[in-house]
Every structure is written in structure tokens, then in C-alpha cells.
């Protein structure tokens, strides 16, 4: 259904930067590219609010279309070495925890060249058993299999030894922990009727088989699902007892002088390199972001933090649907001109009757601002959600969303093209949760005219409104905030968030708090904000890591013992569980979620306090606020937040208004409850509500929060002339006025 897709080398750029644009067509042999400024991306014909503005750019024009290759699946690659290709007798081994042994042939450790049948390949064969292959260099092979499937999600020591003198190949699998379960240990020996050709030109690949893709691009195939730990290569044929002893030994080259390589995955956790702790330094790297900082075969449970016991976290979990960088070739580049105003832009790609937007954010040059207000685009959250497939792949998706599965063209495309990877809401093909989500690949929801209207497209309700009301703004992003901290925000008198700033790294959180404490202002025009701590990596830019520890709306369970993030060693999960709830940052935090009906706000006594006078100018005393809007008919809905002094809402916070009108299907979130009970829904539970709050900071700053994702969807109502628009504008106009706010009783 999709005929053209693409992505850019960055989501955030500034004048002088170069954006590379990668495009792939499915069918059409030509496409057209143009630059547009995105003003409002919601193209619902009943609303008539869609706005984009075509802008001249040197790259605009026609290009030849082509189908660019994407291969998902993570693995380790080690450059070929004479130390591997010159082996006579040898042993290769690793601890193996297969999560889909039934899947068919999967590579474990292979220096195999299929074209010539040379090298070796330790694999899981079609029957799920450990197997080892050798070749004669001219198409002849011998393969020995244990003939017994490995047990799913259990550790085994898998070894293969070639004894040149005996012309014999032995392969074995040793099941660890047979106390309660039948052992799957097995071994087999076969004769090798030729002198193996070890001169593979391929790199040594772990968790897959080496492969050469079209155009000579090196890569891999036959991806393994599961964990590997302590892969080792030894220049002698070890018997089973010696092989087992070596496998348990943390310093194998001290035990056996013939050790060629002893890779230690517990080294450089958080990086892309794979360290050989043995005597030859045959280092390599991981490809496509397998999961590191995972429990090893020897995990004892005494430590939950990999930094405290790295030797027990020496495994890597590989998945056949991991994807970091699609690595497409660039079709054209765009140098951001000095006079391009800050804003949300897109390269609009068109082929036949289809189109795709490669969206990016242009910020002002570092250290400068061109407006008093910054729109902080929630790019960490956009990444977390990128290519989400949960709604149509989860059994309870329909009853969660209160809908009949309805797939948009972009979603059908993702369903039919598994190679574009998953979001942090999804589950890998082996049932484990997805922890990484990258922007270095086509992301189907990342632009205007996408549905469901969420993330960037929902946030353009705010952009369209700012334009309509003549409020000048710059655009900055989460990635900029992560990299530059408070210095980025201090260029501005005020910051306005998007509808859903859910994911925050620690530098983002600290930067925002410091900004507000020093006199900055924030209008949080969204809901479900500041919920999850995530991480970004300098070593692997363009991706967020998330561990959904403990609690919250997790969509999937997190693996016990793996709550500490790989990128930075921080404990993952809800900010609330880290002792810093969103209520302490912005006054409110998430209490309920529901999608079938949205509510509206009723003014509270505090809204008549003189401190809040500017917010309600032009609003009637009894006026119901936001009983209209794009998201289920109201301004309070989808995901809503409330104040809670116990969780840190500052004591001088004014609770200006509270929402009503929520349905039975708008239910308290897991973070808020200690047990399920029979009054979870908004039809009965008084805690299901959004609070609109305001407080000042001693530094002259202020924070206004609406606590609802639906709020910006009400801004365009009635030609942007309505009380949601009015309240929002009252707040922003005052927030960009540099006159300091005073604390009450100050």
C-alpha cells in the first residue's frame, strides 16, 4: 500500500547543519521531493485545520526511485584474522540461552563462507539442536548435530571441537540446572573426511551467519534469538570435561595456553564494542542494538545492578527483529540555510498517488534564540513510540483502546514489513520486551497526515494554534535538552511542551527543573508527562533505551534482574519510583487513561485567587472549559494527570480546575493503585480526573499544567476561538513577559 518511505539523518538540526535524506520506493521508479514547513498536520476533513507551507529548497525536484535494503537482526561481528583462518585442531564454545530453538537454523558462532564452504559454523539446526559445520573449501561440508533440541530459555554450554589428528568433530550441549527438569544434554562425534578449509574471507559472526547482501554489502542472516555468554575460541581440541572446565573459568587463558579468544560481553556494556579479554585482542562490535547488561549464565541473584557484579552480566540478548540504523544510501542532502526560521519542517516525498514526510526540527543556532517562547518537541517520546505495533498485536489491544482494530496505511506497511523494527511498547519475536527504539529508520507515525493522531501529529495542534494566534516560537527538542541542559532553555522566557512529553532522561529532567527554579516558565499543555526515565547514548546516538521496571503502564513486563539501564547504569522505570514524581516537577502526574470519552474542566475556588487572575481573563465564573475537542469530544482525556501533595505537588500550588465527565473505561493507572477493585473507572472513581494547576517558583518562574493529552486537540475548535485557546493564550502571553512571578506571601 505504501509506495514511498524515507528517513533523515537527524531529527533536530540548526542552520549550517546538513540533513541527509534517505528514500526507498516500492514500485515507482521516480519520486518528487519538496521542503515544507509543517504548521498543522491533522488533515481530518471535518476540521479543515491542515496547514503546510511549501518552501523553496535546492534539493526540490525529481529523483530516481529505488528499493533500499533493510535487514533487522542483531549480531556481533569480529574482523577475520589469521588466528582464526589458520586453525588446525580447535574448539569453539559459548553459553547459549535460546529463546526460539524451534525457529529453524540460527547462527551461534560462525566464520563461515558459504560461497566456498570454508571456515566453521556453530549453529542451532532445524531441529533446535546444537550443530557444527566444517567445509573442504570447494563445496563439500560435514555437519555434526547433537540431534536433541536445546531447552527453550535454559542455559547450555555449547561446544564443538575439531581434532585434526583423529579427523573427528565433536559437538556437545550441556544443560545447566537439571534439578527439576529433564536434561537436554547431548553430544555427538562424526568423522571428517577432508582437511577443513579454514580460510573464510568472512568476518566471525556471533548470533547469526555471515551473509553478503546485494551490492556487496556485508551483513548477516539466520539470526539467533536468545542470549550468548562467554564465547571462546581455543586452538586445540578439548575433550568434554576440559571444555566444561574452561566454560566455567573466568580466566580461560590462564587455564589453557591455547586459548585464541575469550570474548567478555561484560566489558564495555553501554558501548558498541565487543572486547576480547584473551591474549590476542580480537575485538569487534555489536550491530543493531542487541540488549546488553543482561543476566549471564552464572547470575546468582545476589545483585540486581550489573555495575555491582559485571561478571554475572556477561551475556548479550540478541533478537532477529532488532534494528538500530537502517544504513540506507543518501538520496540527497540539505544544508540548513542561515535564514530558515526555527520550526517543524518536512521533506515531502511523493511517488504515484502516495506520499511520506521526513519530519525534522530546525532550532536556532546554539546559544541563540529568535523568540521568547520555545516549543519543546518531545523527540524522546516520539522515539519511544516509533513504529509502535502494540495495538494490533496485543490480545487486549482492542479492549484497552476501546475500538475495533483499525489500521492506517502506515500501520499496514509496518505489519507487512517486519524489518523496520519495533517500539519500546512492543514485544520481540521471542516474547521479550523491546528496550531500544531508534530514529535512524523510517518511522511511520513521524509526520503530518498520520493516524492515529498522536505524538508529533497531535503536537502540531499546538503549532497551528501558535501560528493562528500570532504567538512567536522557536522549536527545540528533547535531544537538544539532553545534550545542552539548562543552557538551552535559558535562551527563553518560557517553554511550552507538547501534548505528551512522557519520556525524560536524567539530563533532560535536571535541565528543566533547574530552568524553572532559576525563573523559567513552563506551560505543560499535555498529559502523561515526565513519567518514564529513559537514557540516550553518546556511543549510539539516535536511540533511546528504556527498562520498564516495577510499575506503571508497561505494556510488557521487564526482565527481573535487568532494571538498570545499559547506556548509563541508571535504574530505569517510573520517575515516581525513583523518588521524584512528575507532581514535584509540574504539579500533576498521571492518574488515569481512557480513550472512548473525554471530560471537561470545572473551575475551582483557587481559580479566583488573584494569583491566577491572568489565566482566567475573559472566562466566565461558571464557564465549563473544554467540553469540546478532537479527542473524544473533550479537553480532558486519553491520559490525564492530577495533583498529589504526597507525591510532591508544591504546597502553594493552585488547583484551578478539575475535570468531570469521564467514562467507565477511563481507568486508574497501575502506578496509582495497590490492588484492582470494582471501582476503577471514571464513572465511579473520584480519583479519575485531570487537575489544572499553577504555581510560582522563588526564582520568579512559574508552571502551568493542564494534565491532559486531549487539551491541545481542543485548541482548533471553532476557528481557534474557544476557552481552551483563551486560557492557553492567557498563560503564554504572561509567561513570555519577563516580569518575575512572586511567591505567595512573598
Amino acid at each position, binding site marked *: 500500500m505504501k509506495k514511498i518511505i524515507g528517513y533523515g539523518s537527524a531529527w533536530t538540526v540548526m542552520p549550517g547543519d546538513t540533513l541527509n535524506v534517505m528514500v526507498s520506493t516500492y514500485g515507482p521508479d521516480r519520486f518528487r521531493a519538496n521542503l515544507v514547513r509543517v504548521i498543522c498536520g491533522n488533515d481530518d476533513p471535518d476540521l479543515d485545520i491542515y496547514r503546510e507551507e511549501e518552501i523553496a529548497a535546492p534539493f526540490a525536484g525529481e529523483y530516481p526511485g529505488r528499493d533500499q535494503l533493510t535487514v533487522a537482526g542483531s549480531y556481533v561481528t569480529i574482523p577475520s584474522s589469521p588466528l582464526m583462518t589458520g586453525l588446525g585442531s580447535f574448539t569453539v564454545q559459548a553459553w547459549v540461552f535460546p529463546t526460539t530453538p524451534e525457529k529453524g537454523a540460527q547462527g551461534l558462532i560462525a566464520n563461515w563462507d558459504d560461497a566456498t564452504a570454508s571456515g566453521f559454523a556453530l549453529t542451532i539446526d532445524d531441529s533446535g539442536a546444537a550443530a557444527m559445520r566444517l567445509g573442504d573449501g570447494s563445496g563439500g561440508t560435514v555437519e555434526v548435530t547433537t540431534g536433541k533440541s536445546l531447552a527453550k530459555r535454559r542455559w547450555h554450554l555449547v561446544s564443538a571441537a575439531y581434532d585434526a589428528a583423529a579427523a573427528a568433530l565433536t559437538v556437545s550441549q550441556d544443560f545447566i540446572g537439571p534439578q527439576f527438569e529433564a536434561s537436554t544434554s547431548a553430544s555427538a562425534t562424526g568423522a571428517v573426511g577432508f582437511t577443513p578449509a579454514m580460510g573464510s574471507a568472512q568476518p566471525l559472526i556471533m548470533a547469526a551467519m555471515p551473509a553478503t547482501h546485494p551490492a556487496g554489502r556485508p551483513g548477516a542472516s539466520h539470526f539467533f534469538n536468545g542470549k550468548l555468554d562467554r564465547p571462546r575460541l581455543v586452538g586445540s581440541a578439548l575433550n568434554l570435561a576440559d571444555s566444561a572446565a574452561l566454560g566455567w573459568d573466568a580466566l580461560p587463558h590462564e587455564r589453557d595456553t591455547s586459548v585464541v579468544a575469550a570474548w567478555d560481553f561484560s566489558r564495555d556494556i553501554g558501548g558498541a564494542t565487543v572486547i576480547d579479554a584473551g591474549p590476542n585482542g580480537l575485538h569487534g562490535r555489536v550491530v543493531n542494538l542487541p540488549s546488553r547488561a543482561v543476566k549471564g549464565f552464572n547470575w546468582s541473584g545476589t545483585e540486581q545492578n550489573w555495575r555491582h557484579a559485571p561478571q554475572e552480566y556477561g551475556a548479550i540478548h540478541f533478537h532477529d527483529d532488532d534494528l538500530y540504523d537502517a544504513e540506507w544510501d543518501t538520496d540527497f542532502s540539505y544544508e540548513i540555510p542561515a535564514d530558515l526560521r526555527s520550526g517543524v519542517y518536512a521533506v515531502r516525498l511523493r511517488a504515484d498517488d502516495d506520499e511520506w514526510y521526513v519530519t525534522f526540527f530546525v532550532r536556532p543556532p546554539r546559544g541563540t534564540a529568535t523568540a521568547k517562547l520555545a516549543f519543546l518537541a518531545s523527540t524522546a517520546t516520539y522515539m519511544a513510540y516509533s513504529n509502535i505495533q502494540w495495538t494490533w498485536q496485543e490480545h487486549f489491544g482492542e479492549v484497552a483502546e476501546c475500538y475495533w482494530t483499525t489500521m*492506517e496505511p502506515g500501520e*499496514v506497511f509496518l*505489519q*507487512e514489513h517486519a524489518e523496520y523494527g519495533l517500539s519500546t511498547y512492543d514485544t520481540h519475536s521471542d516474547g521479550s520486551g523491546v528496550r531500544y527504539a531508534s530514529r535512524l529508520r523510517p518511522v511511520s507515525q513521524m509526520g503530518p497526515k498520520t493516524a492515529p493522531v498522536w505524538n508529533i501529529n497531535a503536537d502540531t495542534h499546538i503549532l497551528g494554534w501558535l501560528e493562528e494566534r500570532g504567538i512567536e516560537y522557536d522549536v527545540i527538542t528533547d535531544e537538544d535538552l539532553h545534550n545542552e541542559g539548562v543552557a538551552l532553555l535559558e535562551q527563553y522566557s518560557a517553554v511550552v511542551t507538547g501534548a505528551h512529553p512522557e519520556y525524560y532522561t536524567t539530563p533532560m529532567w535536571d535541565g528543566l527543573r533547574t530552568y524553572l527554579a532559576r525563573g523559567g516558565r513552563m506551560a505543560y499543555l499535555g498529559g502523561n508527562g515526565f513519567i518514564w526515565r529513559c537514557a540516550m547514548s553518546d556511543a549510539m546516538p539516535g536511540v533511546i533505551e528504556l527498562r520498564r521496571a516495577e510499575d506503571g503502564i508497561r505494556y510488557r513486563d521487564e526482565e527481573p534482574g535487568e532494571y538498570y539501564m545499559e547506556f548509563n547504569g541508571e535504574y530505569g522505570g517510573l520517575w515516581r519510583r525513583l523518588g521524584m514524581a512528575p507532581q514535584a516537577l509540574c504539579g500533576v502526574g498521571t492518574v488515569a487513561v481512557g480513550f*472512548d*470519552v473525554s471530560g471537561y474542566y470545572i473551575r475551582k475556588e483557587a481559580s479566583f485567587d488573584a494569583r491566577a487572575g491572568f489565566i482566567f481573563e475573559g472566562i466566565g465564573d461558571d464557564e465549563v472549559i473544554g467540553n469540546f475537542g478532537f479527542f473524544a469530544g473533550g479537553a480532558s482525556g486519553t491520559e490525564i494527570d492530577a495533583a498529589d501533595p504526597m507525591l510532591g505537588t508544591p504546597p502553594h500550588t493552585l488547583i484551578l480546575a478539575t475535570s468531570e465527565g469521564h467514562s467507565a473505561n477511563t481507568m486508574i493507572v497501575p502506578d496509582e493503585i495497590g490492588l484492582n477493585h470494582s471501582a476503577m473507572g471514571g464513572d465511579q472513581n473520584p480519583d479519575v480526573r485531570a487537575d489544572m494547576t499553577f504555581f510560582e517558583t522563588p526564582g520568579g518562574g512559574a508552571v502551568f499544567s493542564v494534565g491532559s493529552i486531549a487539551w491541545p486537540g481542543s485548541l482548533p475548535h471553532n476557528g481557534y476561538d474557544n476557552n481552551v485557546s483563551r486560557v492557553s493564550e492567557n498563560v503564554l502571553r504572561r509567561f513570555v513577559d519577563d516580569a518575575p512571578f512572586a511567591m505567595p506571601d512573598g
Partner: protein
Amino acid sequence: MYEIDPSRTDLIEEFDQNPGGPHSPELALVVNRLRLMPMEERIIIVCTKRHVEWTLAKMPKVRGAKLEYYDDLVFDDYYAATKKVFRIRWQAVTGVAPA
């Protein structure tokens, strides 16, 4: 577990009146029952032309597989598509075709 009484055709009428919900407690039970059918047996809606056309389809069992479209079940109104999905699933669950 709640099972649908196929003689309660009044609930089909009630759904037709307000397919977008919220529904009465009884109809909400029916709707949830139909939404909890096994994934691989579900008939779903695909937006085949943005804001203009919706086609019913069968969800494939695995990722990467193509959807199977019902080219005779094409709608120019989203709620008309949901009413058809409701009826198809009702029949699948109760064994009784709604009128």
C-alpha cells in the same frame, strides 16, 4: 465468563444507534466479548483511503505477513464498517447470523 445470548438482537440495534459508544453495561459486555476473540480469527478494519474508504480484512498470524482483504466489504463510512465488524464477530462467537 460472559457469553452472548444470540436472542438479544436488541443489543445489535443498540449498537447500531451508537456504534462509537459509550455503551450500556450489557452492550459493553457484548462489545468486550467480541473484542477478545482470538487474534487470528478477528476481522478488522483497514483504512484503504485516508478519511474516505475502509475495507475489512483478516489479521495475519505473524508479523511480516500480508493482510487478507475482503474486497466486497468496502465502506465509505467508518461507523458502517464497525457495524459490519460487529455483526461478523457476533456470528463467529454465537454461531447465529444477525438479521
